[in-house]
């Protein structure tokens, strides 16, 4: 789910960056550092929407290095997977244990145990895809699937979620370009 939230971040600026455009430099640094990052509690920072200029307060000089630490408040667009949330994802890769799907930067793994029962033994190693017993549903890389998030784990800079397509109205949505 996407949502907007105001967050805080500390920017360490080197003395070389001090100048007339310090504020815009700080904004640039902030975007470089923060965008694409996965924050443990908030999810992926998709985009820094706004950095109010008046929120960039004067920094504190570190004695050892001469760098200045600015504490910046900003509003960001965040992507966070919620448990039991239903998402549309693009299958990126299938393997013997299930498949990986992406929602933007978010990686979701769907185990074969979380697939409908007629797909449990449907792994086809030649085509690298999961095929249901009646051959009607073929999930291969590039397909769009609708899945429900069942759990997630946050590691540094990366969120991995697990999903299920074993429920009504879940499963293959789009055959993909190749399929």
């Amino acid at each position, binding site marked *: 789910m996407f949502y907007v939230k105001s967050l805080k971040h500390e920017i360490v600026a080197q003395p070389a960056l001090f100048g007339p455009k310090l504020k815009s430099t700080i904004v640039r640094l902030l975007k470089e550092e923060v965008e694409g990052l996965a924050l443990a509690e908030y999810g992926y920072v998709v985009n820094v929407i706004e950095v109010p200029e008046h929120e960039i307060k004067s920094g504190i000089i570190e004695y050892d290095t001469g760098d200045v630490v600015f504490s910046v408040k900003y509003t960001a667009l965040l992507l966070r997977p919620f448990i039991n949330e239903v998402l549309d994802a693009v299958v990126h890769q299938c*393997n013997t*244990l299930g498949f990986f799907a992406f929602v933007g930067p978010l990686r979701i793994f769907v185990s074969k145990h979380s697939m409908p029962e007629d797909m449990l033994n449907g*792994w086809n*190693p030649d085509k*690298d895809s999961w095929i249901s017993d009646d051959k009607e549903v073929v999930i291969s*890389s590039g397909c769009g699937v609708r899945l429900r998030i069942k759990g997630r*784990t946050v590691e*540094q800079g990366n969120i991995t979620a697990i999903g299920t397509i074993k429920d009504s109205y879940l499963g293959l949505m789009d055959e993909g370009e190749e399929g």
Partner: protein
Amino acid sequence: MSPLDSFAILNEQQQQPKRDDDDENDNNYGLSTRTKRKRTEILLPPTSVLQQQDEEEEVQEDCNDCFIVVDVDHWMVLPGSIVKKGETVAMAIQKTISINNNRNDITNKQKELELERIDPVITTGTTTTAAAVKHKRPNRRRKQIQQTQQQPTTSINIGNMNTNIHTNHNIPTKPSSNNTNNNENAISLIKERLASKWMTTTTAAAKTEKKDTLTNTNKTTTTVQVTMKAVPSSISVVTKPSTPPPTTAATTSSIKPKDLIPIIAPATGFLRMMQQQQQQKQVNTNHRRRLIGYIEECLHPTILEGMCVVCGERPTTTTTTTTMPNNNNNSNTDSLLQHTGPNLTQVTVSGGITMTVSQQEGQSMAQWDANRLFRQQRLSLVLDLDHTLVHATSDVRARNYLGHNTNHNNKTNNNTSAAGVRTIRLPLNEGTTDPLQLQQPSNHLHHQQQQWAQHYVKLRPHVNDLLRGIESTYEVSVYTAGTKQYAEEVTMVLCRSLLGSSRDWDDIERLRYQVQVLQMAQQQQQQQQQQQQIIIINDTSKNDNTNTMDNTEDIENNKRTNDQITDRQQQHEEEEKERNRDINDGDDEYDNDDKAHQPVKKKRKKISFAVSTVEHTEHHPDGENDNPITDATTTTTTSFHHTKSDHNNMITKDEEEEEEDLERLQQELVQAVEMEQAAHRLRQKLFGSRVYSRTDIGDLGQHVKSLKRIFPCGGTMAAVVDDREDVWANADDNSDTTIKGEPPENLLLVRPYHWQPFVGFADINNPAGTDLSEPKQGSNNNNTNNNNNTSNRDPYNEQDQQLLWTRDILHRLHQQYYYHNQQCKTTRGTSGNRNRRTVPELLKQMRQTVLQGCTLVLSGLVPLHKQQAIAAAEASPNTTVRPPIVRFAQSLGAKTQDKVDETVTHVVAAKDGSEKANIARTIPGCLLVRPGWLMESYWSIRKANVQPYLMAQGPAAIPIKNASSSSNRDEKDDDDDDDDDFALELEDELLNG
């Protein structure tokens, strides 16, 4: 709300799972159901609780309401899916019956309830309410069940509805229209039936119930029990999926929220519903507690980043979210592995993601894979790349062999012994790419922005033969110590060479570029021609004529060579130089992006210039002549220049030639692109996504390869081809059959392949395995051997037979495997699964017969201090690691001895002149051979011909050796001595100090 709110009963006792239940449900786990899994029952509130409550209430005699939990109204969770502890599983219907001493009141009350329930049936027509109606008329309900059992297809009732629901469960992803239709039909039928009958039946039912109550004593408890006894037959299971949302809403509205109590999951796991009959059984044995389903704990079959991928739980209390700076996804599973012991194994699945799977899951995976391969009559094969199939180097001198390569290829037309040198490009900044990007599909557009390093890949002779030979009988995987990209590029190279295409992706791009330029030139020329036809009539000079003739020849030559040269950089340099000369501009620096556009732009300038000169200055041929002369070596630009060398006869000729060129190039381009696509397809077919690389298995380190990573249960159908056995031996999770520290039996060791001019230079990945037959190359005693070596050194004419041997071994292995196992199948029936001979067994057996009956003495091959290890190995054969050469000999079925006596058939000596060698000469029938013989036997699993490896008869052979070899040998001796000395010193120190 009632006191039974949020009612859930926990039964923590581990129940013996019933076999029949398991068989029905077992397809859900993909695990063997032999294991007992913990079950937690979900029960409806027992009547006893109610009774107690009622009794308590009765004392007060004021409160006459009692609650009866009747049945499950609807399940919130699809059976078979995961529920978490505390989640609401289902809603149960709860009835309130007020009980007075006056029996009429009871019946009245019941009638009221009945009316309440029936009304919505007629209006909304949901199954739930229908069930409620039927519950009210137990006798009729029972009859109906009997009816359904007799004619299940025709009559539409609850039983039928249930089956509908079940079919729905089977395909929950595709809610089919049939089911909804059925539902509607059913509902309408029920409506009709009820409309016609309810007047009579309700009264009848009321009577029967009344009778029941009358026959019993006037206690409330018995009333309750009677009702409960009647209840179990009416099971209304209305699942969420089967009813479309509006009807669900109607259902809930039809029953007062007060009447529904949630049943809360007592544990986390799979939800299983009891079948109707089972429920009945359960009730018959035990009135008090009605089992409506149970929750089976999740066995956590697969764990990704410390999280079970099925239930989302963290199976162990590891500190997973603590700092693990490793950017690979293995970090957590590592710690997990240590915590949970041997039940979990790590598997790298195709695509290179490592997960942890439970043993059962691993077994089921292996079983499934084995069955599939068996059906296809194939085996799996794990190939190494470096020094096994190819030799890759980044040495720039290798470029010199490129031209030779293509010429050779063209002439001999896919001769397999051709010196196949190819180039690949790899990003310089490997390792810094973040894991996300690594997993994204590689995109060629993306490549141009990265720094590239040129690498040269030399294909081993006969690699095509090998791949062709095993294409249909083996499922090939690649397991390399290189990076992912390296592995992919090399597999592409292999596929290209298999198809016989000499162009790689870069070549195609270059070709495309040439075609574009030519097309452009033609367009320009056409425009120009029109102008010229108007303006220019006559301008001929002999100089020009000859010039152009020369030029055209040059062009032809250039094009030919350009097509053949595969080195991209070289080509670009040339082109750049030519362009610079042509234009006489000082532009040396091109960006990659500009390359495509710049020449075109400049040509345009030229055109305008040339045309203008033609138009205005007829008497200044110098300006025009200069250009063609300097252009003499250029390819496309010159050909364009000729067109403006302005005389009409020549123009037409040039045009024709140019068009031919263009057509030829276009054809080539089309062919090349087709070839490339075919190569891609072939690669997908051959290797699929079964390419495992160092980057995928970073946690194992560079010098460890583990078979379990790919085959969680040891790979009983897999053979491995590698030039190093130590990497496999280093894995600490080898299957139990092999001695720890020794490689698995699956491994087919091959002779490390070196591209002779570049031995040991700038190898890209890990070094090659040690070649134990190497000492023979130092001593040039044997003539044939000598020839062999020199021919090996000639980079264009290699005599390496290893891959033919390997192909032969694999062929034999496949035949044996399926011959044996087919027999197994026919004799033992379908239960042959468990009796299948495994690949390691077969390989072991194959090896055992090679040197059977031979008795070997090893001379100068095992350092002194290791000889003690051999002795130890003999004492306890299953624990000690043997020195490789001894192991080779023993695994080939030969006996090894310390001393040379009459029984010895071969003395394998590292060098001539040793004591053992001298004794060997005195014994008739005892052959003195170089270790190469033993190694060849091992590499080819075939008794190698002794002849080329025989040491010359008599010690007179010693002086023949030349200076270089003797120095080599001295070094070798020194090494050995050093080893021994060192060992002795160490011993002394240990004993004395």
